[in-house]
């Protein structure tokens, strides 16, 4: 992967000036390349990684395994894209193995998610079955550990 993308993926708020220094590139080239990535849709957005467990939100997340029948035209894509459009669905992946789609669905509470599954998801044509698991606690998200960072144990000066 382009090192520029690695830097942004690790810290999207990194200033363009600093990125230019790290990569030993002119600032204009960094700006240009980021603009290109945005235009081509490689970079699709910039978000903060939150530790939501600390926020006491009225929110639950369910991980839902879905079995579907692929459509005659469009295969899995048609049904997967249709499901993805629901705002409740935060992430959606096509999987290998014993089910087809893996969804991360958010709702204010258990009942709301249950309603989404029974009233919106299951009735869709092509959805064969669902299996819903509720998330209890987040330890790591997007490569970021959620517990407090361990302090630097190193001596302040070392040879």
């Amino acid at each position, binding site marked *: 992967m382009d*090192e520029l993308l*690695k*830097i942004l993926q690790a*810290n999207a708020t990194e200033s363009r000036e*600093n990125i230019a*220094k*790290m*990569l*030993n590139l002119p600032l204009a080239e960094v700006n240009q390349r980021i603009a290109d990535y945005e235009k081509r849709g490689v970079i699709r957005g910039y978000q903060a990684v939150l530790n939501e467990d600390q926020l006491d939100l009225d929110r639950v997340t369910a991980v839902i395994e879905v079995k579907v029948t692929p459509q005659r035209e469009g295969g899995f894509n048609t049904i997967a894209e249709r499901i993805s459009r629901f705002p409740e669905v935060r992430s959606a992946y096509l999987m290998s193995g014993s089910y087809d789609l893996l969804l991360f669905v958010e709702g204010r509470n258990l009942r709301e998610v249950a309603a989404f599954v029974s009233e919106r998801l299951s009735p869709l044509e092509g959805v064969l079955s669902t299996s819903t698991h509720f998330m209890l606690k987040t330890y790591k998200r997007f490569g970021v550990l959620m517990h407090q960072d361990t302090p*630097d144990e*190193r*001596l*302040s*000066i*070392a*040879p």
Partner: protein
Amino acid sequence: MNGSRSLRDRINLTVRDIPRSGIRDFFDIVSTMKDVISLGIGEPDFDTPWHVRESTVFALERGVTHYTSNYGYLELRRALARYVARQFGGEYNPDDEILVTVGVSEALDLALRALLNPGDAVLYHEPCYVSYRATILFAHGMPLAAETKAENGFRLTRAMLEAKATPKTKVLMLNFPNNPTGAIMSRQDLEDIAAFARERDLIVITDEIYGELTYDTPHTSIVSLPGMRDRTIFLHGFSKAWAMTGFRLGYACGPADLIEAMMKIHQYTMLCASSMGQKAAIEALARPEVDVGEMVDEYRRRRNFIASAFTEMGLACHRPLGAFYAFPSVARFGCTAKEFALQLLQEEKVAVVPGTAFGACGEGFVRCAYATSMENLKEAMVRMRRFVGRLQAG
């Protein structure tokens, strides 16, 4: 003590007369202060790769808590032989040409003690790692320091060695990539040095602890040059490239006669390196490209960042090519390296190490380690720029 001589007087003269490390003095000052950003730490900020730590825990659970062979686990020596051959181009027999030690520190001490008779001279180059001179003296050797210069990127030349060599010179000690300068040697540079060693029939001790950490060109080891393997002791360890300083694990590779002599001292003074550390090292060698590769990429970004920040603020700095140190010149501010470092610490709470800690010829330079997070580096550069701006204005 009732009328007897003071305890100080009884201390071995060599030990008594060696000053404490300059690093230590500076540490005492820094450790009394709060909120200091330290660019003075000569060890990686990265955590040891998790699979290595996890397998160490597993080793403890299985009861790997006993003495090992004096040489170290054979399984580890075999893995080291493969790694050193692939990475550095040195072929060693795991049975009797590799010794696992308590860090490169112990290996260095063993090598010098195994080779030197009192008064034998050891050529090395300064600025260098703080322990070299002391370790030579502890082994009753005579230290002869050649001085590398900023003008040629702190590389060592044959002329520098010739200027210092004496008829009693027996050993040549090398450290590239270099602590504290970040200098590396090209193959051509090393060929000149190797020719010198062969002509003078010197034993070479090469400390390549930063061998994986080069950023523009791959590292060349002197053991890979013709005729050098059989007169060289190659030292390496896990402290830097794998961020395993606290495991205290290093090793020496060399011709069997020399390794056997080192093993003899090791056997009587150390017995063996820690068993769980050795298990950790076996695991560390399982996928070095991944573990070390990721850290090298990050160091390179930091190196680029710090080098261009120095240029922007007007600090002259030869391009650091290896290890994780930059060694900018502060000579033009009309103060000593120590004064610069102290004032920077007091006014901006950034710790750097005065170059003089690494030999007298380090005067006029400070060592800035970029083994710290990008966040810290960014803040440190803002503060240094402010400081340098004031020095320039004043």
